[in-house]
């Protein structure tokens, strides 16, 4: 009975949707439209504004030349974005590599394996991590993580995996590895809490069906929970990636701020947001300011492209064959 009533209500609501005769509805509808359009307008204006500020740069550099050049020399007004783009991508990828396995494991434990009470308690410290200001992460990175990397982790990696170009060079602590590690901790709460919410939506019936077929707890997770929440977990990872790409303060404190491209994760690098924050206040020449705005545009484009790509990926995953139930 209640279900039937609910269906009726839904039908009624759908009939009312355009609300042609109702002034209140039309005003409300219009307001929401305006809000939606405003988001696009603001994003468009930001791009336009950055492009205007970057114009003096365009007189001296071609777009492709700016992206592919790796020289950054404010004294001679010669600018290239490549080392910064490289640093941003490498540190973000590193952080995803380090954070995602931990985050998914933690989310599975909280939703599937831990007693309900423990699960609720565990989410509190994880969410607390998200509330720590990034400058505090930076300080912690500079005074705790960096010396630890320099004295323990990097020498160990160098001894055992030194044959890989990734782990060569003197262990200085600051650099890509330190920035990636800090970012991993910073994006962990985002990935965990969204994954937890997604996994919670797995219908109990799916899990019970798997268990009834004789699956172990582990198999039930792999059969029912993971396939059901795959798209959502991917979304969680993307949210984390978005934060990693744009993080400024914590990264600039531990990455070493050297505009150089090196294969070694031990080396010092630089990231797009970090150089903008560092040099903007004292940039005097129009070309220098233009170059920094250009870096802003590249960061914007990178985030946009990654998000768009991710959306395509999420759609593809949702249509995936091994999905058990809709």
């Amino acid at each position, binding site marked *: 009975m209640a279900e039937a009533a609910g269906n009726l209500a839904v039908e009624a609501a759908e009939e009312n949707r355009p609300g042609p005769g109702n002034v209140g509805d039309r005003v409300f509808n219009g307001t929401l439209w305006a809000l939606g359009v405003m988001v696009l307008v603001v994003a468009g204006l930001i791009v336009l504004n950055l492009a205007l500020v970057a114009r003096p740069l365009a007189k001296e550099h071609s777009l492709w030349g700016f992206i592919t050049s790796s020289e950054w020399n*404010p004294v001679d007004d010669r600018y290239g974005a490549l080392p910064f783009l490289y640093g941003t991508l490498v540190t973000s990828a590193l952080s995803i590599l380090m954070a995602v396995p931990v985050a998914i494991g933690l989310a599975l434990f909280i939703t599937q394996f831990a007693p309900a009470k423990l699960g609720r308690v565990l989410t509190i410290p994880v969410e607390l991590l998200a509330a720590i200001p990034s400058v505090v992460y930076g300080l912690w990175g500079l*005074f705790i993580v960096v010396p630890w990397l320099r004295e323990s982790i990097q020498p160990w990696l160098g001894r055992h995996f030194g044959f890989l170009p990734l782990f060569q060079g*003197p262990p200085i602590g600051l650099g890509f590895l330190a920035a990636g590690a800090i970012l991993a901790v910073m994006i962990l709460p985002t990935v965990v809490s969204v994954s937890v919410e997604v996994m919670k939506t797995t219908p109990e019936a799916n899990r019970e069906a798997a268990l009834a077929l004789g699956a172990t707890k582990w198999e039930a997770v792999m059969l029912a929970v993971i396939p059901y929440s795959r798209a959502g977990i991917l979304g969680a990872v993307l949210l984390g990636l978005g934060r990693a790409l744009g993080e400024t303060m914590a990264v600039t404190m531990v990455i070493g701020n050297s505009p150089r491209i090196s294969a070694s994760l031990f080396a010092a690098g630089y990231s797009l947001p970090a150089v903008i924050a560092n040099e903007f206040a*004292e940039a*005097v020449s129009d070309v220098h300011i233009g170059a920094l705005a250009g870096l802003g545009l590249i960061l914007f484009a990178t985030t946009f492209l990654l998000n768009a790509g991710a959306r395509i990926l999420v759609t593809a995953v949702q249509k995936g064959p091994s999905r058990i139930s809709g």
Partner: protein
Amino acid sequence: MKKFLMGLLLVAGSTASAQSLLINGAGATFPAPLYQKWFSEYNKINPNLKFNYQAIGSGGGIKQFSEGTVDFGATDAPMKDDQIAKVPDVVHIPTVLGAVVVAYNAPGLKNLRFSGETLADIFSGKITKWNDPAIAADNPGVKMPDQSITIARRSDGSGTNAIFTDYLSKVSPEFKTKVGSGTSVNWPVGLGGKGNDGVTGLIKSTPGSIGYVELAYALQQKLTVAEIKNKDGNWVKPSIESTTAAAAGVEMPADYRVSITNAAGKDSWPIAGFTWLLVHKDMKDQAKGTAMVNFLRWALTDGEKMATPLDYAPLPQPVQERVMKTIDTLTVNGTKVSAK
């Protein structure tokens, strides 16, 4: 009734203008603590006058002053000719001096000395080890370890960078062509820390490191600092006095736009520079202009006495006297402002 209302309006108007005189400024971060002190002290003497100073950096200060969005600017690097072309009536008023010192963290080593050439070679990446013959020659009798040098430098654009690279470019032609001078430069080697505290953090946490920070910051943090050989060939310790001495050893041009790095004089600290306030030669706002000129007179006399306790180096006497004469030439709508 009408008269009464008019009177009321007049009273309201005059009290409002007396209360609301606000002078806006923006610019350099280095002298900001001293300027804030000046503004709050001056406000105690003149309760009707308030200053609003935004420490947004020298570049921003020059820009906002040129665009007329602030009444005065402040900068650690003098305006370049093409910038002055946009505001031809700008007057540079030197207020105090800043110095940059070389700090290091070399376990077991103290009282190190560096000549300018050695420093330039270290910061351009030519000298990479502590036991390099050039460092050993500067420090006879000291046993130098066979350890790599880690360079800590400023990653953010700053007046500290400008003064330090200006000095290195003066003492080493090679540094000048390879790196050059400016608020942001392309350092060939080293790790970048944000701000004085970032560089200090790098130095303290990295054994075998060397870097540069502001004198005031080094004094407050009690960093291990190096002696440097000045132009006259003397080894000098960084201090407020040796910084003031540097300004006395330089011939001062009429517009005060002068670099005082590598200054002559036996006690001169070689890595020092002025910081300037930027004002218009002829100010258009009667009340603000008059207040500004009187404030500058106060700042260069009573204000200078507050510099040393805050670890800024005051101007040497002859320079201060000259600046006072320059302040007397400032006008408001073409008329000079008589001293109170």
